[in-house]
């Protein structure tokens, strides 16, 4: 062990895109704190994911993206096609969305970022984040901005929740090809322009990349390749949850040695420290060249896979596992150096790991304990409470996200007491397991008093048979009791649910839905997913037990997830359809899922912040927040055809040769979605595109118009007649003036049309300049039509027969 580790050995740890954008991820801040505590004085960290979001969602980049879309997607060619197959339908949709929305997005994106970050005003009373009618259009603007960025790099898709390309994560040659694709990999230019110069300037001896998700694999390897080219003596290592699953395969894939020097498996603290120690010790030896970082003998570093480059070549070498650290000895994470003002949240929500692994660890579908491991370890309540106070004071925030698979009953009693006794004054949310002895009326009240505002329980299914197969160890009765006790204490309840577990029938899935519908009002959110088989899961290792036949794809050398055939129950395709059925019900029954309210569910801590409150703003209860959302939807639905209605300024319209809704429905079909990388797994089914086209057919021509309103950030599709009416309304000045020209029957139709557009925000009763605009309206020249066509007019002969 080296006793003194000075600034002469700089270490840089980076979180590559893409991860969620509302708060820092915990792994790197934990490792930074650990290395610093062990004497490494020069350890820096970068969150390249949030930096990338900030870079792409800028006025300058969206202008660049608009030009790239025009260059790459060639809307005119697509509009002239006789019909659109799946691939062209995707390109066409991306192109028309860009054409309709790009100008408005460029104008509004910086304001939208400021609003979501709470940087739009001095006080919470004035900040748009807290008002749904200002917050939701801003969030939509950011999502649409990423649609524009994605269109520029078509068919790649970057969202706040995922990054996929045409390349499959399952195949190493595709993954490596993606790291070279300048057109479709947006991170190459981002790294070159915004990241690499800083890394080169800091001259790290070790660069560590945290790869938690499949969405990070290509961006991480892209960065690794670029850094290794620029700094050949920097040792590039990677670790994290995703690599805990597939790291061995990644190391053995030809060509990866140009991107990485090693991979750390499982918990990173001990292996990363040993790696730094080993490299530093080697460098300090006399006569060693600077390139030792990539040619060292690292046999002694536990839990490390590394390329042995001695003697030429790069031989993957796998070391024995390291002992895990004693978690209670680990320091609190350090977030210094992260761009804390760049996260898409008005308040910093600090992640903190109370334990690692799962004390239950029996669920047959879950493999997280395996990859987070080894084993289950917890910090003491005393340590947690002490760290919470340190973090609260150091980062001037009272909001915490306790990172845990589930908290054991003992901790659920002791930690709240310590937080209350210590006058922590915090609010927090966490994942949880249904523990009836812990979540009693008294227990949930204590949790609330300690600051708990939201808990996410693994509910999974309402079928006793399926729960037994899952070995969940919980009954529906206790699930309902626990949820109700939380709800009575004003702790918001989220359920994780699953559809498509092996042998599950449609009837069983619908029973799960019925249970969730029955408990709407107690359960505020449902995080639903379809069942997947990964290679660590019991369902993969013992498929006969679950009536499964695993389907292997011999070309998929990085495969983690597998297709399967079940002896009974739903097929994978039927499970995907059932997923849509359940989701449609949630949209009807859960206020947080209705319409665009769903963004509260999707923005991680944003809903929680409403429940938490701030020094300037009283906390809301789950009930009061839902009521506010319901009232908003009711007021929207009640909008009518007032005579004062006029066209909202800044609308943009694009004439369409195909139906936008038709394209959207086509692309949303489970078969079409199967031909894109799956959201959860990052893989896609071979030949799915051809299968989907054969079964779904092509999109026929029609004549239509896409309208985009930048203020409400809404897309609406009209027929050309509808656009003509909008233009007439604009010229008439008000609905009343236009309606005077109509017959009684015509007036009724006009008013119905206007009322619907009023509900959608396309028409408004506010005069230009009167409204408290959520975002600045796009400037338009005097005398110019407010509805400006942004692209080409449709062809005269626009009614082609559908192609068979």
């Amino acid at each position: 062990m080296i006793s003194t580790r000075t600034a002469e050995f700089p270490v840089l740890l980076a979180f590559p895109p893409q991860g969620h954008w509302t708060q820092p991820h915990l792994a790197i801040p934990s490792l930074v704190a650990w290395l610093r505590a062990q004497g490494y004085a020069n350890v820096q960290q970068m969150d390249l994911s949030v930096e990338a979001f900030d870079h792409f969602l800028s006025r300058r980049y969206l202008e660049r993206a608009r030009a790239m879309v025009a260059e790459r997607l060639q809307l005119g060619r697509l509009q002239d096609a006789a019909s659109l197959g799946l691939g062209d339908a995707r390109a066409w949709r991306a192109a028309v969305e860009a054409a309709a929305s790009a100008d408005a997005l460029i104008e509004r994106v910086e304001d939208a970022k400021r609003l979501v970050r709470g940087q739009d005003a001095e006080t919470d009373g004035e900040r748009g984040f807290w008002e749904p009618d200002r917050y939701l259009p801003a969030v939509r603007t950011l999502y649409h901005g990423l649609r524009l960025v994605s269109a520029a790099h078509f068919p790649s898709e970057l969202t706040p929740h995922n990054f996929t390309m045409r390349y499959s994560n399952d195949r190493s040659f595709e993954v490596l090809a993606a790291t070279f694709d300048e057109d479709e990999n947006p991170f190459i230019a981002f790294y070159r322009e915004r990241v690499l110069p800083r890394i080169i300037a800091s001259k790290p001896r070790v660069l560590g990349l945290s790869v938690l998700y499949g969405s990070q694999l290509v961006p991480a390897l892209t960065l690794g390749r670029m850094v290794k080219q620029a700094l050949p003596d920097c040792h590039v290592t990677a670790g994290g949850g995703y690599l805990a699953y597939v790291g061995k395969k990644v190391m053995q894939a030809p060509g990866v040695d140009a991107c990485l020097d090693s991979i750390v498996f499982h918990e990173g603290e001990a292996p990363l420290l040993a790696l730094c120690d080993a490299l530093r010790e080697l460098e300090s030896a006399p006569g060693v060249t600077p390139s030792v970082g990539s040619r060292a003998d690292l046999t002694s570093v536990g839990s490390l896979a590394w390329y042995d480059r001695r003697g030429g070549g790069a031989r993957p070498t796998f070391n024995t596992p390291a002992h895990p650290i004693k978690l209670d000895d680990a320091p609190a994470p350090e977030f210094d150096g992260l761009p804390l003002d760049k996260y898409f949240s008005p308040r910093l929500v600090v992640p903190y790991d109370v334990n690692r692994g799962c004390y239950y660890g029996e669920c047959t579908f879950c493999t997280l304990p395996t990859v987070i491991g080894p084993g289950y370890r917890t910090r003491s309540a005393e340590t947690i409470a002490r760290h919470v106070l340190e973090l609260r004071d150091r980062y001037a925030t009272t909001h915490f996200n306790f990172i845990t698979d589930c908290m054991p009953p003992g901790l659920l009693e002791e930690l709240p007491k310590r937080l209350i006794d210590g006058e922590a004054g915090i609010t927090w949310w966490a994942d949880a397991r249904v523990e009836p002895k812990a979540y009693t009326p008294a227990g949930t009240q204590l949790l609330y008093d300690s600051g708990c505002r939201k808990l996410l329980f693994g509910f999974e299914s309402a079928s006793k048979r399926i729960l037994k197969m899952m070995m969940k160890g919980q009954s529906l009765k206790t699930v309902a009791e626990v949820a109700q006790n939380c709800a009575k204490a004003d702790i918001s309840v989220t359920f994780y649910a699953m559809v498509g577990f092996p042998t599950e029938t449609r009837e069983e899935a619908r029973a799960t839905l019925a249970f969730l519908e029955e408990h709407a009002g107690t359960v505020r959110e449902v995080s639903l997913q379809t069942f997947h088989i990964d290679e660590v899961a019991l369902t993969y290792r013992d498929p006969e037990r679950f009536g499964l036949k695993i389907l292997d794809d011999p070309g998929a050398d990085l495969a983690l997830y597998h297709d399967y055939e079940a002896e009974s129950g739903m097929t994978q395709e039927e499970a995907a359809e059932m997923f849509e059925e359940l989701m449609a019900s949630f949209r009807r029954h859960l206020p947080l899922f209705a319409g665009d309210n769903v963004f509260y569910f999707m923005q991680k801590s944003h809903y929680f912040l409403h429940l938490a409150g701030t020094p300037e703003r009283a906390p809301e209860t789950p009930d009061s927040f839902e009521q506010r959302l319901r009232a908003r939807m009711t007021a929207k639905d009640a909008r009518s055809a007032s005579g004062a209605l006029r066209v909202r300024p800044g609308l943009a319209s694009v004439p369409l040769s195909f139906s936008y809704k038709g394209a959207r429905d086509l692309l949303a079909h489970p078969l079409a979605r199967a031909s894109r990388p799956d959201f959860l797994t990052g893989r896609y089914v071979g030949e799915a595109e051809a299968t989907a086209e054969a079964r779904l057919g092509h999109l026929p021509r029609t004549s239509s118009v896409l309208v985009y309103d930048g203020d409400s950030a809404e897309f609406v599709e009209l027929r050309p007649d509808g656009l003509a009416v909008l233009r007439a309304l604009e010229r008439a000045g008000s609905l009343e003036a236009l309606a005077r020209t109509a017959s009684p029957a015509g007036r009724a139709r006009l008013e119905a049309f206007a009322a619907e557009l009023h509900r959608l925000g396309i028409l408004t009763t506010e005069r230009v300049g009167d409204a408290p605009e959520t975002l600045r309206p796009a400037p338009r020249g005097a005398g110019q039509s407010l509805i400006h066509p942004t692209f080409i007019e449709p062809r005269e002969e626009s009614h082609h027969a559908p192609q068979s």
Partner: protein
Amino acid sequence: MHRKAETKGAAEAQDQSVSTDQAQGAARSDGPPSTGGDLDFEALDLSIETVEERISPSETNVFDK
């Protein structure tokens, strides 16, 4: 190479913008602005397709990406 492509794209986008403005101007020069008197609202196709959130809640999962 990238920069060149962007420049070309920007020029094309500008051209398109000009041409659509011209098309709009031509339409306007056909006569005095109509206030709707020439529209038969009973015969028009006034259907509206709303684009309910294009963002699917299915794009979230237990890993909270």
